[in-house]
């Protein structure tokens, strides 16, 4: 009597296709991931329950922490245009090379009289440079007021959009310093702006 033979199948699977797909996806995610840029002013954002995401485009951020105020804009073209406008206001002329270097800076906190020197530093020296923050007072001629104003003008002319503003404050920063920034916003009739927070549960 012949026994029925059960064919033994191999349990191994060809992984080649799976491996291809996995690495394709991996490449995609690595390339689309936005590199986390190091902030020159480290701030610990307060927690809140808002779940709304912070937009990436057409936004300028005022960072407040340790009594200093830093300013940053998104978009290289806007950064260049804003710096050119600020240069004409403060009688500083920037070369195209300097404008290009500035366009790569996400945030900065130097007054205009140190700006040229700051831009021409190399990356390592720039990290060591003690940035004292952007000068601010209650008048309509302070540097922060002008930065905000010129950034809005640049965004309106280049993108035809209204620039959005956000305050990124440190949890331990005392309120009066933040109030100065809010006052400047209100003086320019920026009545809608965001406060950057990190997510926390109720």
């Amino acid at each position: 009597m012949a026994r029925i033979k059960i064919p033994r199948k191999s349990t191994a699977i060809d992984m080649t296709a799976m491996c291809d797909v996995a690495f394709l996806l991996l490449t995609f995610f690595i390339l689309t991931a936005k590199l986390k840029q190091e902030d020159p002013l480290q701030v610990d954002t307060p927690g809140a329950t808002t779940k709304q995401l912070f937009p990436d485009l057409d936004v300028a951020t005022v960072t407040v922490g340790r009594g200093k105020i830093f300013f940053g804009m998104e978009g290289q073209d806007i950064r260049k245009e804003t710096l050119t406008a600020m240069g004409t206001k403060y009688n500083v002329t920037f070369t195209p090379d300097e404008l290009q270097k500035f366009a790569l800076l996400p945030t900065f906190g130097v007054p205009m009289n140190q700006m040229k020197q700051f831009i021409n530093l190399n990356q390592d020296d720039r990290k060591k440079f003690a940035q004292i923050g952007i000068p601010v007072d209650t008048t309509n001629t302070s540097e922060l007021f002008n930065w905000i104003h010129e950034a809005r003008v640049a965004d309106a002319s280049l993108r035809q959009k209204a620039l959005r503003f956000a305050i990124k404050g440190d949890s331990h920063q005392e309120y009066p310093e933040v109030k100065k920034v809010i006052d400047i916003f209100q003086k320019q009739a920026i009545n809608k702006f965001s406060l950057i927070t990190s997510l926390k549960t109720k």
Partner: protein
Amino acid sequence: MAELDTSGGGKHKGGKIRSKKASTRIDLTAMVDLAFLLITFFIMATTLAKPKAMDTFWPDKTKKDVQLPVPESRTMTVLLGSNDQIEWFVGAPGKSAPTKDNFGKNGIRKALIENSKQIEATHAGKDNFMIVLVKAGSKSTYKNFVTMLDEINITGIKSYGVVDINPAEVALLKKDGLD
């Protein structure tokens, strides 16, 4: 299939010595595991690290004539003091002693909900909601301010405003050592 051929070439009984024919198949399981692990990491890192934004709306200060009259009995004033402490009172300052409170579920959130209910019960008409005035003292931190706005969002207060603190209220905070 899908593994390295590790078997020997067999015995050579006389004859020619044949070179081993190694399989070209490699076990890719570990590599796939690693790739998916990295994919998971990148997916998590890109979406979770995004900061959140709390939108705030402020009155237009460039126009002078937009001050709305606010009935005092419907207002609750919250003063932010030092050391994460709060004082709040309903109505005009000085009429009733302020209540000292702190942040958290049983602190200001409870006060907001209770006062809101009470004001809605004691006032008639359509506009009987409570108006919260947030006034930050000079020693309060940005975190206090954001937490306060967040508590207002959580409790669903319809109407609130951020107002400059006045000397009478600074005095109230000073009395309790919060400014």
